[in-house]
């Protein structure tokens, strides 16, 4: 038993490859048998991944889902920023530069509107829940943009840790929902071409949510959504603690 555990621990990345392969295999069966191919296997695999992350989080109380269990630490390496970015860039191989140029203006509008819109929605909802302090409203609004913008903005403005945690929560909800919901409603919002994928990436902005949601919908859309969403967090970090904070203070303070 000890020998088995140490084998698994010493080969954590390999364990991750095998585990994810098993998850995908199960998803293919579920997709074919239970949904008769109606739901894509990749969408099911991503949902199983999120469920595993939930159990990992409950079991350890950590923040990295399954990767907090020592045995599955390799999943953290496989799904960590370095390999994720390498694979996203690789999906750009074969993508059309012309399509990206054609959708440039819509993408830029979507990007700016996406940041402002999520921020305003987060701040307005925080207002309805009784928050009145401009710093707190700004932090929750920023977190609704992405879970990175929230805490950075909160720290810059000196928000309390409770509000910062809330802003991370809002961003996580957005990211997880985007992963789960996108494949199911892609058709009804016309998400089947490069232009709508570019707009989608700019509006939603959560890179993990956008790229996973698009991967579950149609992998060929990933590079287009990634193209805009990769600028979203930077733009959010630029606007939230400055222009958007001043706007909130002018309105509320």
């Amino acid at each position, binding site marked *: 038993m000890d020998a088995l555990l140490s084998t698994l621990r010493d080969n954590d990345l390999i364990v991750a490859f095998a585990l994810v392969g098993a998850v995908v295999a199960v998803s293919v069966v579920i997709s074919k048998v239970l949904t008769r191919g109606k739901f894509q296997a990749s969408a099911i695999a991503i949902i199983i991944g999120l469920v595993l992350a939930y159990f990992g989080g409950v079991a350890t109380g950590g923040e990295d889902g399954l990767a907090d269990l020592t045995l599955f630490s390799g*999943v953290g390496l496989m799904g960590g920023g370095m390999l994720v970015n390498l694979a996203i860039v690789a999906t750009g191989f074969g993508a059309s530069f012309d399509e990206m140029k*054609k959708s*440039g203006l819509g993408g830029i509008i979507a990007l700016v509107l996406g940041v402002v819109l999520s921020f305003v929605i*987060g701040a307005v909802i925080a207002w309805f829940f009784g928050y009145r302090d401009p710093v707190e409203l700004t932090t929750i609004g920023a977190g609704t943009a992405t879970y990175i913008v929230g805490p*950075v903005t909160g720290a810059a403005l000196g928000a309390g840790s409770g509000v910062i945690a809330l802003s991370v*929560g809002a961003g996580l909800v957005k990211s997880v929902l985007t992963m789960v919901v996108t494949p199911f409603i892609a058709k009804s919002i016309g998400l089947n071409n490069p232009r709508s994928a570019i707009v989608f990436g700019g509006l939603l902005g959560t890179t993990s949510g956008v790229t996973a949601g698009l991967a579950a919908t149609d992998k060929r859309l*990933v590079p287009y959504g990634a193209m805009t969403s990769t600028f979203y967090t930077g733009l959010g970090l630029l606007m939230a603690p400055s222009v958007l904070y001043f706007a909130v203070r002018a309105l509320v303070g």
Partner: protein
Amino acid sequence: MVILGVALLSGSLLIGTFIGNLLGDVLGVDANVGGVGIAMILLILSTNMLARHGRLKPETSSGISFWSAMYIPIVVAMAATQNVVGAVTAGPVALVAGLVAVIISFALVPVLARVKTPGVDEPVAVFAEEN
């Protein structure tokens, strides 16, 4: 050779990330601004250029396609390392804010997808149903 494709991909990512970090510094934000997007443009341009000169060998391409094909499994691993407990237990404000932001953003996709870049009239390609 396969490694040449992988190296081209890695080089694109390194340069893109570096430029993204520089851009973040210039703008005064502690983040990578568009690094992945810039890397993707570099990869698309460099592979197109190699293909035009007939220098993009199938083995070189396969070094890139492998990582492209690994994208979904890597995303599954990424999903498995999300702080899902944090999302589920974040409290009503976070849940409602995230939910409403997603609904309204989704609703705006078809509206903004109609915006065309001036001077370009051709329709965008629509992907056929994939089985």
